């Protein structure tokens, strides 16, 4: 029996684009669906030979979406290489900037990328199933969403001077103190941001209530979960230790991120350029895990801010106290984290130390090697540098969030394709569900290059002899 094959290939980047192949069997059912990520990892080589103190400015260029995460992970790694731990106020300021990044990135994802699917429906006309359609249906919410992202961006700008590629964190600290005016601006916006996020939480809850079948069948599977936590296993986005739990919620490991190579290995599949990280002791695929909002909300036992913690306790009951496995609940977890980010930004701003000018440690004790770990919006980000005594980098290793979630995205695509594609006709709505399985993870398939020349998304079904029998095209 020869299988039929459907290919979905959005070529939206020169590099880093993804392709979905759905192999059908002769009875018109999905045999297996694959997500191929053509991620080209040349950035490490590009960094070799650079000075370590340049890295906080160079590495944000990897990505226009989460540059702050790379900026801060690079600064943390450089702190270690150069042996200059930052003073407490500098760490607080970096963390504050990171909260801005979480707010703007998560806000954009929920309200502008995922929101249209939830509010307008997976099967809505794609011409209106977007943020513009959302504006037309609910202009008040759309304005709130724009203001939420703007709030996060404004935190970044107030600290770093720019919204996209800040020049702020340097080895040993930061290069600018926070003014009283800037702090007050951040504090003034917090309540409105939380209110908007609570509207978002209401949306996802109501949607889940009405779409229970989708929630229970859309990419639901067991994995481990991975994320930073505090000493007491509370949610942590800037520092802390890595905690890894199994599918039942039992702790497998809790370790210093510097030792990640002792715990993580990477598997290679011939059909994807992106490797598949897994927990070494359990092997592949038994040791695969998820990161990002779902991973973090499962990994943390609680959250140290009241409103987010209240939501987390509700989230924890979704699967009877066990880890929540539903891919669509990535959206819920994302909003819980966003509330935490706003609440935490407020706490940081209310601490008098945030206005301190003790922001840079100029004493250095060269170490030559350093690891910076941070929770980027999409998941755990590792920067690992090795430098010579001139502070020139000899080796660089980066593990980005989308890499950790590679297996999960592939599994979600396969699961969703098998669940929803039950006949030979591929409708736009079905195609959108397969995309949404990837989109729920909010992957960053390399934003570092994006010349125009996009092709439309194409789904092709071919017969066993390779002849085209159906083509769905849009974009």
């Amino acid at each position: 029996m020869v299988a039929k094959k459907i290919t979905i290939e959005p070529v939206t980047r020169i590099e880093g684009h993804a392709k979905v192949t759905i192999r059908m069997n002769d009875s018109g059912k999905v045999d297996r669906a694959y997500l191929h990520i053509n991620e080209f990892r040349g950035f490490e080589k590009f960094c070799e030979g650079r000075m370590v103190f340049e890295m906080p400015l160079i590495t944000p260029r990897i990505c226009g979406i989460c540059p702050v995460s790379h900026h801060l992970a690079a600064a943390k790694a450089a702190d270690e290489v150069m042996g200059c731990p930052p003073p407490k106020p500098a760490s607080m300021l970096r963390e504050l900037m990171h909260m801005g990044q979480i707010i703007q990135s998560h806000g954009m994802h929920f309200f502008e990328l995922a929101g249209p699917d939830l509010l307008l429906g997976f099967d809505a006309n794609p011409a209106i199933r977007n943020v513009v359609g959302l504006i037309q249906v609910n202009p008040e919410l759309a304005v709130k969403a724009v203001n939420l992202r703007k709030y996060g961006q404004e935190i970044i700008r107030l600290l770093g001077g720019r919204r996209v590629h800040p020049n702020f964190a340097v080895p040993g600290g930061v290069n600018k103190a926070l003014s009283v005016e800037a702090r007050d601006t951040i504090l003034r916006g917090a309540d409105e941001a939380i209110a908007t996020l609570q509207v978002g939480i209401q949306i996802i809850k109501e949607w889940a209530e009405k779409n229970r079948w989708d929630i229970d069948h859309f990419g639901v599977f067991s994995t481990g979960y991975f994320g930073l936590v505090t000493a007491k296993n509370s949610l942590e986005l800037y520092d802390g230790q890595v905690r890894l739990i199994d599918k039942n919620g039992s702790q497998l490991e809790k370790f210093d991120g510097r030792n990640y190579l002792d715990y993580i290995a990477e598997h290679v599949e011939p059909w994807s350029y992106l490797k598949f990280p897994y927990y070494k002791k359990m092997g592949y695929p038994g040791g695969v895990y998820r990161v990002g909002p779902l991973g973090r909300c499962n990994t943390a036992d609680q959250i140290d801010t009241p409103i987010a913690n209240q939501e987390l306790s509700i989230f924890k009951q979704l699967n009877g106290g066990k880890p929540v496995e539903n891919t669509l609940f990535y959206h819920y977890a994302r909003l819980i984290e966003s509330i935490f980010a706003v609440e935490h930004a407020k706490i940081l701003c209310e601490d008098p130390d945030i206005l301190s000018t003790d922001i840079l440690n100029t004493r250095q004790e060269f170490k030559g090697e350093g690891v910076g770990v941070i929770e980027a919006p999409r998941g755990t980000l590792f920067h690992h540098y090795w430098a010579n005594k001139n502070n020139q980098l000899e080796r660089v290793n980066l593990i980005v969030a989308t890499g950790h979630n590679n297996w999960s995205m592939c599994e979600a695509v396969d699961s969703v394709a098998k669940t929803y594609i039950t006949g030979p006709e591929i409708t736009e709505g079905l195609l959108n569900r397969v995309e949404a399985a990837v989109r729920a993870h909010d992957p960053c398939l390399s934003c570092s290059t994006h010349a125009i020349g996009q092709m439309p998304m194409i789904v092709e079904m071919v017969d066993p002899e390779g002849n085209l029998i159906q083509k769905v095209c849009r974009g």
Partner: protein
Amino acid sequence: MDKVLIYGYGNPDRQDDGVAWYILSELAVRLGREPFSLNSDPFSFAEQSPHLGVALQLTPEISELLADYDRVCFVDAHTGAVPDDLSIRSIRPEFQTSPFTHHLTPEACLHLTQAITTHTPQAILVSVRGYEFGFDTSLSQATRMLANRAVEFIWEWTQRSAQI
């Protein structure tokens, strides 16, 4: 006098992908302003238009900014998927979905502008063929030549009336 924005985007660390930064810098110098770099202010808002801006990619916030202008020229690289090496075309508001990522097109930004403010500037997209996309800050010779032609075109375009 029309209020004009020239807005380039791309990654200057990926050779020809960053051609817009080169073009915008050349225009800035002609206007007696500082050229752009990754460490400079991404906007050049002189008292008189044209205003200039650069970014690594388009983001939703830019939609609000666009509403302040009568005419906008977007500048980008292309990979050869459009017919002309130096491609110049009018663009209109149209939301274009990016299935997996946060990527926005200039047409989608204009659509957002229209939805948020009801005003839409006239807009063109100038895109220059890129040939080399490695990790380097230099342009290929072929792209640099096309970029110089693009500078001339945009310079003349800024001097014209609102006709596109």
